[in-house]
C-alpha cells in the first residue's frame, strides 16, 4: 500500500484498486461507503470528546484555574467518563410532549453536523466528496440545524425550551446572512465555489494575506457570525444558563442530550474548518509568492498537520471570545447583525469586487 503523509490520493486509490480487483463494483462501493462512514463516526466521536476536554481546559486557563485534573493524567479521561455516564442515564420524555418531534430533533441536529462535515478536505486526497458548489453546500446544509433546535424547543412542552428555541431561530436566521455574505466576498475573490479550487488558489499565498483589507474584514465578520451560528458565547442566549436553565435542550437527558452537546462541538469544528479553508488556505502550507526556499521548508510539514493547526487556531479564537465577553441581550444581538455586520459586509463585497476588478491584490 502506497502510504504517503503528504498526499492521500495514492492510498485511497490503492484501496479502491485492491477492492475492485476481487469484488463487483456495487460491493466495492458498499464497502467503501462503510469504511468512510465508520471513519467519520470515529472522527466525530473522538474529536468531539477531545474538543469538550479542550474547551474545559482552555476555559479554566482563562479563569486562572486548572480544569479537570482527577480522571486520568491531567484529567484526560474526564470526557470519556462523562460520556459513559450520559450513555447510562435514563431517557426522559416530558408529559404531553410531542413524542415524534421530541425524539426526532436531536437526530436532525447531529445528522446536519455529519452531512456538512463531509465536504471538508483534511489533507490532499483526504476528502469524501468534492463538487463544484462545496461552499454553498456547507452553508445551506448547516442552516437546517436550526430546524432541529426549533423542533426540540417546540416539542419539549416547556416554556424555557420554547423561548430558547425562538431566540436561537431569530439569531441563526440573522447571522446566516452574514456568514453567507462573508463567504460570497471570498468566492468573488477565488472565482470558484469548489473547495478544492479555493484551496488550489491559495498555493502562492493564503487568501487572508492575498486579499488584504477586504479579506481581513470578511474574516472578522465570518468569525463573529460563525460564533453566533454555533450558538456559542457571547451569543449563547439560546441556552442562557442564568435565564433559561438550559434553553432548548432543558428536557433532554442521556444520549439525546449528548447528541446536542456533540453537535455543538462538531458545528464549532465546521465553522473553524470553513474559516480555515476559505481564509487560511485549508491544508495548504504557508507560502509567500516567490520565496522558494521558505516555501520548500513549509512544504516539509504535512498538509494534515497544517489543517488541524489552523483549525485549532480558529477554535482557540472562538473559545477566547466565549470566555472573555459577556452574553449579549437579544435586541443587542439583532442590532449587531442588522445595523453593523450586514452593512459592513455589503460594503465589503463592493470593495472586494473593486479589488478583483482592478487587480489590486497580491
Amino acid at each position, binding site marked *: 500500500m502506497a502510504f504517503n503523509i503528504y498526499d492521500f490520493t495514492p492510498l485511497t486509490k490503492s484501496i479502491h484498486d485492491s477492492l475492485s480487483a476481487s469484488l463487483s463494483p456495487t460491493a466495492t462501493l458498499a464497502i467503501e461507503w462503510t469504511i468512510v462512514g465508520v471513519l467519520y463516526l470515529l472522527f466525530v466521536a473522538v474529536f468531539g470528546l477531545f474538543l469538550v476536554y479542550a474547551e474545559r481546559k*482552555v476555559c*479554566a*486557563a*482563562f*479563569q*486562572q*484555574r*486548572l480544569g479537570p*485534573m482527577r480522571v486520568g493524567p491531567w484529567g484526560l479521561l474526564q470526557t470519556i467518563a462523562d460520556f459513559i455516564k450520559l450513555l447510562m442515564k435514563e431517557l426522559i420524555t416530558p408529559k404531553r410532549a410531542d413524542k415524534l418531534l421530541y425524539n426526532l430533533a436531536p437526530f436532525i441536529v447531529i445528522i446536519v453536523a455529519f452531512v456538512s462535515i463531509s465536504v471538508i478536505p483534511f489533507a490532499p486526497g483526504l476528502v469524501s466528496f468534492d463538487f463544484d458548489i462545496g461552499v454553498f453546500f456547507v452553508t445551506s446544509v448547516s442552516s437546517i440545524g436550526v430546524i432541529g433546535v426549533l423542533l426540540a424547543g417546540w416539542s419539549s412542552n416547556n416554556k424555557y425550551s420554547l423561548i430558547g428555541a425562538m431566540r436561537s431561530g431569530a439569531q441563526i436566521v440573522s447571522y446566516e446572512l452574514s456568514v453567507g455574505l462573508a463567504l460570497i466576498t471570498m468566492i468573488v475573490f477565488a472565482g470558484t465555489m469548489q473547495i478544492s479550487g479555493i484551496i488550489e488558489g491559495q498555493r502562492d499565498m493564503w487568501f487572508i494575506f492575498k486579499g488584504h483589507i477586504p479579506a481581513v474584514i470578511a474574516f472578522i465578520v465570518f468569525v463573529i457570525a460563525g460564533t453566533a451560528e454555533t450558538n456559542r458565547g457571547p451569543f449563547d442566549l439560546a441556552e442562557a444558563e442564568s435565564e433559561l436553565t438550559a434553553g432548548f435542550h432543558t428536557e433532554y437527558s442521556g444520549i439525546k442530550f449528548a447528541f446536542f452537546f456533540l453537535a455543538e462541538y462538531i458545528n464549532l469544528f465546521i465553522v473553524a474548518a470553513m474559516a480555515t479553508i476559505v481564509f487560511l488556505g485549508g491544508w495548504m502550507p504557508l507560502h509567500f509568492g516567490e520565496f522558494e526556499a521558505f516555501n520548500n521548508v513549509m512544504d516539509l510539514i504535512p498538509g494534515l498537520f497544517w489543517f488541524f493547526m489552523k483549525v485549532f487556531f480558529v477554535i482557540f479564537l472562538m473559545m*477566547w*471570545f466565549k*470566555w*472573555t*465577553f459577556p452574553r449579549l441581550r437579544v435586541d443587542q444581538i439583532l442590532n449587531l447583525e442588522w445595523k*453593523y455586520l450586514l452593512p*459592513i459586509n455589503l460594503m465589503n463585497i463592493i470593495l472586494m469586487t473593486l479589488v478583483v476588478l482592478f487587480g489590486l491584490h497580491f
Partner: protein
Amino acid sequence: MKSIIKYFGEIIGGFITLLTGMKVTARYFFTPWNNVTQQYPENRATLKIAERFRGEVIMPHNENNEHRCTACGLCELACPNGSIEIISKSVFNEEGKKKRAIDKHIYHLGMCTFCNLCIRACPTTAIVMGQNFEHTVWDRSELTKVLNKPGSQLMEGVKE
C-alpha cells in the same frame, strides 16, 4: 456626516473595548503559574491559606501559657447562635483583691457559623480566627472545645 462619524466611531470604540478584555484573559491564559487552584490533598504539606480565612476560633497562648482573655463575656453575648459559653471563676490577686478570671472558654465548633462577630466583640483580642479547616472527628462531642489551656493565666498588663 456627523452620524456617519459616530457610526464608525462606535465600531472602532467597540473593537478597542473588546480587545482590552481579550488582553486581560490572554494574560491569564499565558501565565499559568499564577493559577489560583490548589490541588488540596496532594499539596497538604505546602498548602497556603488566605490570611483572612476563617477556619475556627482559637485563643493564642504565649510561651508562659498565658492568654489575653479577661472573661468579660462579650463574645458570648455577641454570638448569634450561642456557640460560646464563658465559665468564670474568682481569683485573688497579690493585693488580696477579688478578681474575675476565665475558668473555661467553651467553644462549640459544631454550632459555629464563622461569622467573626465574637472576634470583633473581643476588647482584648484574646480570640482570633485560626486557619485550620480539617475538623473531621469521630464523635460529635469532640467538636466542643475548651479554648483556654489547662493551668493558663491572664497575661500581665491586659486590662478590661
